[in-house]
């Protein structure tokens, strides 16, 4: 019903090439479209809004300034009198000193452009504003006398320009093409065969509309839309700078998905992301939304200066916010007044001020959740938590009750504790502790056991350089308490005395050394816990006990020693047993005295005591505060006193269990980065040249009023800024947003420079349509789904995308839309599509990011040694098959299969992607295990669901991924290739097995190997078709 009437081509090249500006010249010159870009591009660098770099006092961005008498006595422009306007002389001068723009600028103005300027001056040199800074005006929807099918007003605008370009739209694409196009565009996934069949079977006039509505209801819609938004939000899973450690902000990502799926109006979507925290009593979701401006890259590089980074973060937020909502390249104004757009440096820092007063720290600390962050429990988690909290409260009450029921009196209160016995525990003798892994200069052979001077010992004769035998990994480590001493025995050969001997202990680190003799370089001259000087080399010819205090070599109470290294420089040494000297435990009768226990603990500190209790113990009796003594008593009776303790045991155990359940739960509750305003605002200044050290005038938060007036009654904070952005009279926000949506479906925006609506940006291809869409969007209550539906319903969108040589020549980029959109799919869609048709896709929405296949050895060569994203550990199972938007994004080494297909690095805001065509992309599709595995699984489906004959199966494969049946030619080609592959694999079944081993998903072993392999080659071929990676 929507097919346009065929119109014959009667196009003449000469007419068409002249099309853009030179058509009929009856209309006066349009300043905004035809003059301002010229002046901006060629003159504003020295004669524009930036006062500090202005030359010769000439300012061309404002009429009042451009027509004044210059110092030279000339007038650059005299309205109506091109002959008196010196600008024309300068533009055409043959004297290279006079010529403008100066030859060394590399800029030139063509004769046609000069003629245009002349005509404009003669027409009165009317200045106007830049189109994008003027509020959109409701255009008259054109009534082109055309019999072309128009589904909605979009088509009226498009057809009008086609008509004047003497182009004819294409007829509506066939249903199969259409359902694939719209399904990919609205969900990022291809339609299933069932969905295609249902659409083909639906003869009603609303068949297509029903498909669109169904897609807009799908949860996949939100994921797909969110992915585009996350490019703009520079969302990623690592901090981005220096260590590039992991950060958790994926609950924000999930918030975006939900916002699209719930069709949150774009104005609310805006306000919550920019200022959700400042709304009255913000909900958890509204605070999560503010993650938008916590997605920026941050650092914690040692040596960095805080002040510099506070400035950088705020600058990034201004730039991102300006680009995303206003299409303004405000960044230029960080250093000087904008050269092209009227945004001044002062205005930049007024915007900057909105983002300069957050509670975040300049250094992210390389932690997962640099504050401020909030916990984001699911409903189940919240319920579970409150149940546990209640139970814990009950148990604690019970403990209190037991405590109250005890009547304790210390019978030995006045006594003094006698000398404490010490206890010598041998850690190992002859045989090493369990689990010890032996090693040394000669590996395991470094350990030579002999009998010497009455003992069994390990002997070692060393060269002059470092020589050692050691072990690590003892399963029962020595746990260090206060006052412990470590010892070992050594016998030094009197005829071959070592220069240095050293003991070194491992508690996870080897930085605990004690040496006797010369310092041989371990510590580079340091004499501290990592390299403690003990004195001279001990006496030779007899067994010596080497003893070192644990705390002197940095082994704190609680440390667990699992390894020991015997080191010597030169000489021969016999090494024997090692052990620890600790203080013996207090006998039970004394332990039953509160007073004696306190005295005991004063001498022997143990790491196991709670800090609070230790602190009380450390405080002298008469200096203890109210409640401290009773707290200590309570602790003593509950945990220490052998007589009272049993009454508490069960209840305390229960308390411990509850606490650990709560802890586990709390750990499982995700958190996310959010925005939060400082109580005391940080004063913003104009920064000369953008240098954080060059503070100039103070500025306050304020919107650039020349764009739109501030919203009455709006607060002077981010909330006010957000409200201003979505005020109906704001000229940019709606235009910029609808343009990005348009770009998403049509490949290019109506304004091609989607990130720049300023004077240097491209003029819209259809200015009236852009305004109409923007106003329609606002009018609809910023209804995003409604907007996408409108685009998808237009007959412009539904045209066939076939490319005729004529149209290709006239309009290679398809800006006029005389044909439907056709372009390469985004990286994520290419992978998701393969997962979907192969049946591997795991359709779960949201959650923490996943690490699917990635070639080995990509992170190590670039990551900082101490980074927690240095080693890539691939996930298993379902996590290999999630949609690509959930792939863990390490900014300094992003997933290569994504970036190869032009996914941005996510370090900075990006509102449009490149679309390249490179051999590296071919290699991904040819060889990435993800695609080989998908081909194997897709082949299983083809064999099981595709029918019995080869032809049926080929048709199924085509329909599953291309939504259409193969042509006879295609079928014949594929069939003969299948036969060849079958022959190959039959001759080499072992190769077939190898080919089928790609990926971690199980193979259906029912399928015959060679046949399965041959079909996998066919599905592999289909994945590589140009059509597969193209939306057509």
């Amino acid at each position: 019903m929507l097919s346009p009437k065929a119109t014959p081509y009667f196009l003449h090249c000469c007419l068409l090439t002249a099309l853009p500006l030179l058509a009929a010249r009856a209309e006066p010159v349009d300043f905004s479209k035809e003059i301002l870009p010229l002046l901006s591009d060629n003159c504003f660098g020295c004669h524009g809004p930036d006062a500090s770099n202005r030359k010769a006092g000439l300012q061309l961005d404002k009429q009042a300034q451009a027509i004044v008498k210059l110092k030279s006595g000339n007038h650059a422009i005299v309205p109506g009198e091109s002959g008196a306007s010196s600008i024309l002389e300068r533009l055409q001068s043959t004297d290279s000193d006079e010529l403008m723009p100066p030859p060394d600028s590399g800029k030139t103005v063509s004769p046609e452009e000069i003629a245009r300027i002349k005509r404009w001056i003669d027409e009165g040199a009317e200045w106007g504003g830049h189109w994008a800074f003027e509020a959109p005006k409701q255009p008259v929807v054109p009534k082109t006398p055309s019999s072309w099918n128009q589904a909605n007003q979009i088509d009226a605008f498009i057809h009008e320009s086609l008509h004047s370009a003497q182009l004819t739209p294409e007829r509506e694409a066939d249903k199969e093409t259409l359902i694939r196009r719209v399904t990919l565009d609205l969900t990022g996934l291809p339609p299933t065969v069932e969905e295609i069949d249902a659409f083909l079977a639906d003869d009603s006039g609303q068949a297509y509309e029903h498909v669109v509505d169904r897609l807009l209801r799908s949860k996949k819609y939100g994921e797909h839309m969110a992915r585009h938004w996350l490019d703009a939000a520079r969302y990623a899973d690592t901090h981005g700078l220096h260590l590039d450690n992991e950060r958790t902000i994926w609950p924000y990502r999930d918030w975006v998905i939900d916002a699209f799926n719930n069709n949150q109006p774009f104005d609310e979507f805006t306000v919550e992301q920019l200022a959700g925290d400042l709304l009255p009593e913000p909900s958890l979701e509204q605070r999560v939304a503010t993650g938008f401006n916590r997605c920026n890259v941050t650092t914690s590089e040692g040596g960095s200066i805080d002040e510099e980074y506070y400035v950088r973060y705020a600058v990034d937020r201004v730039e991102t916010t300006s680009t995303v909502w206003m299409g303004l390249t405000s960044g230029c104004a960080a250093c000087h007044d904008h050269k092209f757009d009227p945004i001044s440096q002062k205005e930049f820092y007024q915007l900057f001020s909105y983002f300069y007063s957050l509670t975040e720290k300049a250094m992210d600390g390389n932690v997962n959740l640099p504050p401020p962050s909030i916990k984001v429990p699911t409903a189940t988690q919240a319920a579970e938590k409150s149940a546990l909290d209640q139970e814990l409260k009950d148990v604690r009450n019970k403990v209190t009750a037991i405590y109250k029921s005890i009547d304790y009196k210390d019978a030995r209160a006045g006594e003094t504790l006698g000398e404490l016995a010490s206890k010598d525990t041998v850690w190992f003798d002859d045989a090493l502790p369990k689990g010890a892994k032996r090693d040394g200069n000669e590996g395991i052979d470094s350990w030579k056991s002999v009998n010497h001077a009455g003992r069994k010992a390990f002997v070692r004769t060393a060269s002059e350089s470092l020589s050692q035998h050691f072990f690590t990994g003892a399963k029962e480590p020595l746990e260090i308490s206060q006052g412990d001493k470590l010892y070992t025995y050594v016998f030094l050969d009197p005829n071959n005395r070592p220069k240095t001997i050293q003991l070194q202990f491992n508690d996870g680190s080897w930085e605990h050394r004690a040496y006797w003799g010369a310092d041989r370089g371990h510590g580079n001259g340091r004499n501290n816990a990592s390299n403690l000087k003990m004195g001279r080399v001990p006496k030779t010819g007899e067994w010596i006990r080497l003893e070192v205090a644990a705390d002197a070599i940095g082994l704190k109470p609680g440390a667990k020693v699992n390894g020991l290294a015997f080191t010597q420089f030169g000489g021969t040494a016999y090494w024997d047993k090692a052990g620890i000297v600790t203080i013996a435990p207090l006998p039970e009768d004394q332990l039953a005295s509160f007073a004696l226990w306190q005295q005991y603990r004063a001498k022997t500190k143990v790491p196991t005591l709670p800090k609070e209790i230790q602190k009380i113990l450390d405080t002298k009796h008469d200096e203890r505060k109210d409640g401290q003594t009773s707290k200590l008593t309570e602790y003593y009776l509950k945990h220490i006193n052998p007589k009272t303790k049993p009454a508490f045991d069960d209840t305390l155990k229960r308390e411990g269990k509850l606490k650990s359940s709560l802890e586990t739960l709390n750990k499982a509750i995700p958190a996310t980065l959010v925005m939060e305003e400082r109580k005391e605002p940080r004063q913003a200044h104009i920064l000369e040249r953008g240098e954080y050290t060059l503070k100039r005038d103070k500025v306050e938060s304020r919107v650039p009023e020349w764009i739109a007036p501030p919203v009455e009654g709006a607060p002077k904070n981010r909330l006010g800024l957000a409200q201003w952005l979505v005020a109906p009279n704001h000229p940019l926000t709606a235009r910029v947003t609808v343009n990005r949506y348009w770009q998403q479906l049509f490949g290019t925006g109506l304004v091609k420079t989607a990130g720049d609506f300023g004077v240097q940006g491209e003029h819209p291809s259809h200015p009236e349509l852009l305004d109409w869409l923007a106003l329609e969007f606002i009018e609809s209550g910023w209804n995003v789904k409604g907007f996408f539906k409108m685009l998808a319903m237009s007959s412009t969108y539904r045209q066939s995308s076939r490319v005729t040589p004529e149209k290709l020549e006239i309009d290679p980029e398809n800006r006029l839309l005389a044909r439907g959109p056709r372009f390469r799919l985004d990286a994520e869609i290419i992978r998701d599509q393969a997962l979907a048709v192969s049946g591997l896709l795991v359709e779960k929405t949201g959650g923490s990011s996943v690490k699917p296949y990635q070639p080995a050895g990509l992170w190590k060569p670039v990551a900082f040694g101490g980074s927690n994203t240095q080693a890539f550990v691939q996930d298993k199972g379902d996590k290999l098959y999630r949609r690509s938007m959930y792939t863990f994004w390490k900014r300094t080494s992003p997933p290569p299969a994504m970036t190869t297909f032009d996914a941005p690095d996510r370090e900075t805001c990006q509102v449009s992607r490149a679309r390249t065509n490179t051999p590296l992309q071919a290699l991904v599709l040819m060889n990435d295990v993800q695609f080989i595995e998908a081909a194997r699984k897709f082949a299983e489906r083809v064999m099981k669901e595709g029918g019995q004959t080869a032809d049926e199966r080929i048709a199924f494969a085509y329909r599953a991924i291309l939504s259409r049946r193969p042509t006879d030619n295609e079928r014949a080609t594929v069939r003969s290739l299948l036969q060849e592959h079958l022959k190959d694999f039959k001759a080499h079944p072992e190769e077939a097995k190898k080919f089928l081993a790609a990926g971690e998903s199980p193979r259906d072993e029912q399928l015959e190997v060679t046949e399965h392999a041959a079909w996998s080659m066919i599905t592999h071929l289909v994945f590589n078709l140009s059509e597969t990676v193209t939306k057509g």
Partner: protein
Amino acid sequence: MNPLREAQLVETRRHFFGRAAGGIGTAALASLLNPNLFGATAPSTEELGAQDLERYKKFAPKAKRVIYLFMSGAPSQLDMWDYKPQLEPWFDKDLPDSVRNGQRITTMTSGQTRFPIAPSTFKFNRHGKNGTWVSELLPHTAKIVDDIALLKSVNTEAINHDPAITYIQTGSQLPGRPSAGAWVSYGLGSMNANLPAFVVLHSTVNGGFGGQALYARLWGAGFLSTKHQGVSLRSNGDPVLYLSNPDGMSESMRRRMLDELAKLNHQRYQDVGDPEIQARIAQYEMAYRMQTSVPELTDISGEPDSVLESYGSDVKTPGTFAANCLLARRLAERGVRFTQVFIRQWDQHGNLPNDIRRQCGIIDQPCAALVNDLKQRGMLDDTLVIWGGEFGRTVYCQGKLTQDTYGRDHHPRCYTKWMAGGGIKPGISYGETDDFSYNVTKDPLHIHDLNATILHCLGVDHERLTYRHQGRDFRLTDVHGHVVDKILA
């Protein structure tokens, strides 16, 4: 080349240019013959923001290609190049305030109560015709001083690694701009149809990686087309990502699959007329050719022993700096425009004497061998070799100073790099620093100047090689940079 493979390549060409039944269309033919599909010869107009094609090529190029040996972490100029014998009596004395003059320093040492001077413990000797002072750490490089230009006054503003290395590589301390190699790829394209224009090599240190981080942005394309980003040539796994056919797929099967793929794509092209399909057919052919050309490139078994020996024994261990230097030469021979070899672990805040000895032991011989190797092949004249890091190191000690050991903090105000070959005057020393190697006293050379000069050697006017992004014409040197004529040959 594997003889089977060679035969297949010939067959491929025949298939496309001769035999192809039904013909593949002149457009495809043209694109197949165009050797520049990888990274266009010049900015292609379809790239949003690409600027006038020829106006930046202002000078006759001296260099056709660049090999950039990047010492990540910042090597100490004081211990390698910038000889300061007068510092000896200053041992453990404080750096005079008049020298530091309130300049900002990193927060790693800004809290130190003292800034004790640590003279280098290394001996320097005169080398070459001009008697250039070179540290004992660099016995091999000392032998090529007559071939290199020593730049002692390089300076930057950044004081920490991430911003500093981003700055020297992209012209901005903040992420988002294209890297130098990407600019060169964009401006000059590739000279080899089968290899990328910009290749990156990562070097191991003692068999592992570690040290200051590197970032994809350092060889990224920023806002330029992603096809200009550096391609890492890896020593483990596939040298180029996804290069090898999957297990079980023979070369002949791959060839047959690609032939049928081209046929099907071509049929589709005839139906829908989209020229992108033609381009994609060509990309697949190039991918196939890369599958051969890359292994051939990394196979050094044909190199004569004398050459291998000159690079040192590490050369046979893939991934070492020595192996990467040799690969860099092989890439240069094959027309790769810009090869950047990274080696890390120069960030010596403590234990500098030991660590720098290790690092110099790794790089010294291969650096010299590379320059000599290029020279012997007559390639040094049109290959620009650059050596150095992102900033320098302080004369004052970080941490405890002893007679034997010391550490040095980051120092942006002066440091040393060297350049050699294509367009650079050999055997000179440029720029001077004060007695403390703290401030430049003559001929400062900012990193923008360095980048401007690199582009100049390639025949490119750094002020004119621009790309319009978000309304502004961006360039590698931002709004700065002057070509340093005095170091040009």
